[in-house]
């Protein structure tokens, strides 16, 4: 088994690990670095549970090789809170009861921050529902997730 040392900045820290060429970013985060907040729901690029940001953009960590991310900046769900203080999107999910089992939540939150970033001027319910098309939730019925994202949008753009 040939391995290569792959380095990247994750949540502001420089990390390295020896991995195979076929190692996915999500495996690199979870298995090499114990960052298990990023979930694997489907492993077939459909569900969005594995969403993280690479250079500020939401992407599916199950559909990119660790080697493709060499040298880049990654933010995972673990990198959002400021100490004890939750990120406004996390806080809005908590306030609005936007999770039940919580499995989809890390991906939802990372994806939701992307929605706010892309629509900083104005955001309506229709846009939120449309742009959530890459994130599946089996529990909530989405209603409170949409509410949370709209609430966080107000907070984040105030």
């Amino acid at each position, binding site marked *: 088994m*040939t391995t290569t040392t792959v380095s990247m900045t994750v949540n502001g820290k420089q990390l390295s690990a020896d991995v195979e060429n076929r190692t996915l970013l999500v495996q690199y985060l979870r298995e090499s670095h114990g960052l298990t907040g990023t979930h694997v729901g489907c492993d077939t690029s*459909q569900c969005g549970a594995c969403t993280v940001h690479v250079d500020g953009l*939401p992407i599916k960590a199950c559909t990119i090789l660790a080697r493709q991310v060499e040298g880049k900046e990654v933010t995972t769900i673990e990198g959002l809170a400021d100490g004890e203080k939750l990120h406004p999107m996390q806080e809005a999910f908590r306030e609005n009861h936007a999770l039940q089992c919580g499995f989809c939540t890390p991906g939802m939150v990372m994806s939701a921050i992307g929605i706010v970033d892309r629509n900083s001027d104005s955001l309506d319910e229709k846009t939120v529902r449309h*742009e959530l098309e890459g994130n599946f939730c089996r529990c909530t019925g989405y209603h409170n997730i949409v509410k949370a994202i709209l609430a966080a949008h107000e907070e984040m753009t105030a």
Partner: protein
Amino acid sequence: MYDFNYKRASSVDDASSSMASADDGKFVAGGMTLLPTLKQRLAMPSDLVDLADLDDLVGVKVDNNSVTVGAMTPHAVVNASEEVKKAIPALSKLAGLIGDPMVRNRGTIGGSISNNDPAADYPSAVVGLGATVHTNKREIAGDDFFTGMFETALEEDELVTKVVFPIPEKASYMKFPNPASRYAIVGTFVSTGSQGTRVAVTGAGPCVFRQPEMETALENQFTPESVENIKQDDSDLNTDIHASAEYRAHLVTVMAKRAVAEANG
């Protein structure tokens, strides 16, 4: 997924020569098609040649007559470009209908057309606007680029560098998406302008195709009524769990009609 050698190409020439010297290599662009394929072990290339560092292949350029999209430009960039929205709104719209936001942040036009999935969106714009595909070796007319299901005119070590779309007078794209994947069950791209009047259909058959009867009717009169009674022959169309050939044929006309209405504004 089987393991493979991995290399990031430093230039277009480096990419092409790395591919030529690999046993059974594959370029990787956004990986949105290739990685799922590797995971299912539907492909087992010996080498992946990553195009990610080829910055010259990223970006959109608009002049008076055309919109040029670099092969490595992600769908999200084409969708969000104010210049594209002004010059060819239908192209911006099409890019925004592909997959979901995370797919659009990674997937590229070069990857989409080189893969030529029967249900992919971009092939309909390439054919429906009479675009030209530029590679490291030559220029290929959009009409000649797509040769069959998952087949293109590309040679093994040939890579797409950019696609040049002539700016039409009017154009629109309408798609009936698969509700789960968002791939086109049927998508119809219509345009009229310097490249003539074109109707390109994706999702319905094994490969994107033009609809000559509708094109002739629209040349006479570019109105939804011109196409509403034209029936698409269903004998070569796809049947799968999502839709029968007969239903797809029906959708071709419905999507064409809606697209013409939208193009007329």
